[in-house]
């Protein structure tokens, strides 16, 4: 999962401090793996350097200065490109795909589009494996079958998610 893109996506709804970003990330995506503060700040400086976010304001307090970040037009374009790019089909990609779907819903984009693009990418891999299997020996067939069953499991998850998008939208935007 791309933490940078996820944080950028979270900034689309409005400027936030680093601490708010961490809290929003942990709440939506970090149930079992919350972000470290260090990760948030290093990611934000990278995004700042690349012009994908800008400092929207600085609050001076007793402790260190608190920067408030806002997403730039280039940042919005970067999120859109990331969302539209299918993930490489491989086992256990659900967390990346889940993040994309939730962010699309949060930013009022078409989440069904993301699932459709991903299905097409998976099927492209499955066609290659099916063809290899047809030409190969039994060992090839078994190796390809293993990969095919994993890809099929992803797709079953994808179809179930597609069928539950309305409920998921309600849940994440509540």
């Amino acid at each position, binding site marked *: 999962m791309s933490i940078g893109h996820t944080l950028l996506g979270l900034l689309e709804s409005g400027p936030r401090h680093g601490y708010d970003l961490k809290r929003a990330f942990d709440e939506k995506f970090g149930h079992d793996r919350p972000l470290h503060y260090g990760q948030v700040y290093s990611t934000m400086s990278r995004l700042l350097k690349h012009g994908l976010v800008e400092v929207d304001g600085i609050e001076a307090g007793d402790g260190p200065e608190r920067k408030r970040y806002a997403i730039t037009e280039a940042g919005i374009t970067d999120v859109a490109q990331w969302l539209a790019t299918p993930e490489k089909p491989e086992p256990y990609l659900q967390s990346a795909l889940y993040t994309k779907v939730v962010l699309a819903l949060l930013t009022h984009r078409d989440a069904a589009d993301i699932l459709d693009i991903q*299905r097409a990418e998976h099927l492209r891999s499955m066609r290659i494996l099916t063809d290899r299997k047809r030409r190969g020996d039994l060992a090839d067939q078994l190796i390809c079958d293993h990969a095919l069953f994993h890809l099929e499991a992803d797709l079953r998850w994808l179809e179930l998610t597609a069928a539950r998008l309305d409920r998921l939208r309600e849940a994440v935007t509540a």
Partner: protein
Amino acid sequence: MTATAPPPGSLLAAADLRKVYGPTTALDGAAFSLHPGEIVAVMGPSGSGKSTLLHCLAGIVTPDSGTVTYDGRELSAMTDAGRSALRRSEFGFVFQFGRLVPELTCVENVALPLRLNGTSRREAERAALSWMERLEVADLGRKRPGEVSGGQGQRIAVARALATRPRVLFADEPTGALDSLNGERVMELLTEAARSAGAAVVLVTHEARVAAYSDREVVVRDGRSRDMERLV
């Protein structure tokens, strides 16, 4: 209404299809195209409208609006008899359950569409056996459908569908009633036989492993279709 021109080079094309059954909208502006020799999977969840799309494409169901064009002819402009003749001569069908005639032997089942088209018994059964050989079920010729397994029955159904040398084979969940191994063999043989015969295939399935035998997929959801080749 202005008719939408079918995509250049397409053999079978549909545009803006709508079909309503009582309170249910089965198709809501679906489109489709198939080129000669191409295998296209129609995917989508249960109730998405994919079977209705297949029935409209094959001229079995008349859409409420929209056009289906086969080889330059618009299906809605044809008479019922004309559409029936088209289905007999140009189209082949395989369904989830073989729908073989239980009283006939397997070779008689495969020969049946040829017999209905006027071919002599001897010639029809000779052609039927040659198709059964391709589908690896030639040894079952004298058995009746009740005496063969589900996978064998589907292979006989595929042989029957291809015996008239159709230009389009419509397959509606052809492996839906089979286990993985038998389903796979049916798909291998079906696609090999269709490709070698030059038949295009409209393959309706909700299974990704089956759709992986196609050249591309069209996704149907809520009665609307999406051609993934144009999206990606």
